[in-house]
């Protein structure tokens, strides 16, 4: 059933920005740029998907199909997670290409984290934070998309600000994580897998809470 719902999401709810913003992982080729901003755009594409769904009367339509209401909410979270993972994948590939093809002096980023494995870990945490704030709130009332998005985006930007500030204020952090790969690869891998665990746990929790809230929502 979940596969059918995901198929329906792709057929009826896909917003072009979801695909476009997934390619913002290529930001890592921009010199001296806070690469974490790419993860904000991922949240923006979720906002557009949910806004379009509202304008299309998607929630009511989906719930009249032979599906459980809770599954409809979980499918939406998973649908958006597909594009979040696509962003991470694009960014991961771009980082690999950058590290292999560009000279060492172009690997340094004066505006924030370098394009490395730890950046992907940061990305997972930022996306998990967005999912945890946005989706359970949104599914309390799918008509109101703006306030949950604004709140999640503000928290995301605050976290991005903290990560950028750590680049300049915490030497340990800066030395270990902001250096280009393969320096400190073990620690960076730890951040990557830690971030992945946070993302999986956070998104799973977002699914559970969204389903619970959506069950109680009057459409």
């Amino acid at each position, binding site marked *: 059933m979940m596969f059918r719902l995901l198929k329906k999401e792709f057929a009826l709810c896909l917003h072009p920005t979801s695909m476009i913003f997934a390619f913002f992982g290529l930001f890592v080729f921009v010199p001296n740029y806070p690469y974490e901003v790419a993860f904000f755009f991922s949240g923006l594409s979720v906002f557009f998907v949910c806004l379009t769904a509202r304008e299309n009367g998607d929630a009511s339509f989906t719930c009249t199909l032979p599906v459980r*209401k809770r599954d409809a909410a979980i499918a939406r979270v998973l649908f958006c997670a597909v594009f979040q993972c696509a962003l991470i994948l694009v960014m991961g590939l771009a980082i690999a290409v950058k590290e292999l093809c560009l000279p060492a002096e172009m690997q340094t980023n004066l505006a924030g984290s370098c394009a490395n494995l730890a950046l992907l870990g940061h990305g997972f945490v930022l996306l998990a934070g967005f999912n945890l704030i946005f989706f359970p709130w949104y599914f309390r009332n799918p008509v109101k998309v703006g306030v949950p998005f604004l709140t999640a985006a503000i928290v995301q930007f605050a976290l991005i600000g903290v990560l950028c500030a750590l680049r300049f204020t915490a030497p340990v952090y800066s030395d270990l994580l902001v250096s280009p790969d393969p320096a400190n690869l073990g620690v960076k891998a730890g951040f990557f897998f830690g971030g992945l665990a946070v993302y999986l746990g956070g998104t799973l929790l977002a699914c559970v809470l969204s389903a619970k809230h959506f069950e*109680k929502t009057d459409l």
Partner: protein
Amino acid sequence: MTALNVSNLMKRYPAFVLDGVSFRVEEGRICGLVGANGAGKSTTLKGIMGLIRTEGSAEIFGIPSYEREAKAVVGYAGGGFRAYPQKRVGALANAVAPFYSAWNGEKFARYCDRFGLDPQKKTSELSEGMRVKLSLALALSHGARLLILDEPTSGLDPLSREEFCDTVLSLVREEGVAVLFSTHIVSDLTRIADDIVLLSNGRLLVEEPLRSLAEKYLAATAPDRAALSGAIGVKTVKEGYEGLVPRDRQMKGVALREPTLDEIIVHLEYERRNSGGAGAL
């Protein structure tokens, strides 16, 4: 067989209460759900479809209406078909089809042909009447045995309404489906409904076959109110006062005639208001 059994359906909003509504729709019959604006028609239908949380129960062919097995045999269209205006008819059918094991693509194509629906057209390009037909085509292509339609004729011109009524009648005859449709256009009811469920201010006022309701009352008109003592829903009219009286009741000094269904509904509603909102009559 009972297609739909609604029992004691309740929903509380801050300014409105759907108060224990119960009724049945039998297979192969068309049931009109009527009432004034805000009477609770859409709330009832949404409650049946599980779009809102309600107390009480609704069973579709004996299965709780929120179960997937129950929804699989229902075709629902709420407030015209306004979902996904930029999607093409064919794309919509393709997205819906995997949810129904009984989906029949050939049948959908046949209904599109019969209703004049172009699968390449966007739903926003369809007229109100054609959107209703799209809902019917989608519903019937997955073998729906119960159609629940929320005000399918509102916004339609008289010719389209007539066409809708013809379509529903022929579908009931050919497919044996049961239909529950809400409306406040009483002429549609007279045209196709077998049974009537009248809601007023969130309460069930009447549930009975349309014919027996029509044969139950006479409209009584008198120049003074006292002559209509005991009549139902007395209200002022040009000739004085008018109310409903049971057909077998003897009355003197009043003019009696056959009431229209509209008049019956209006007088029953007046009676409810005059008596301070009592329940079913």
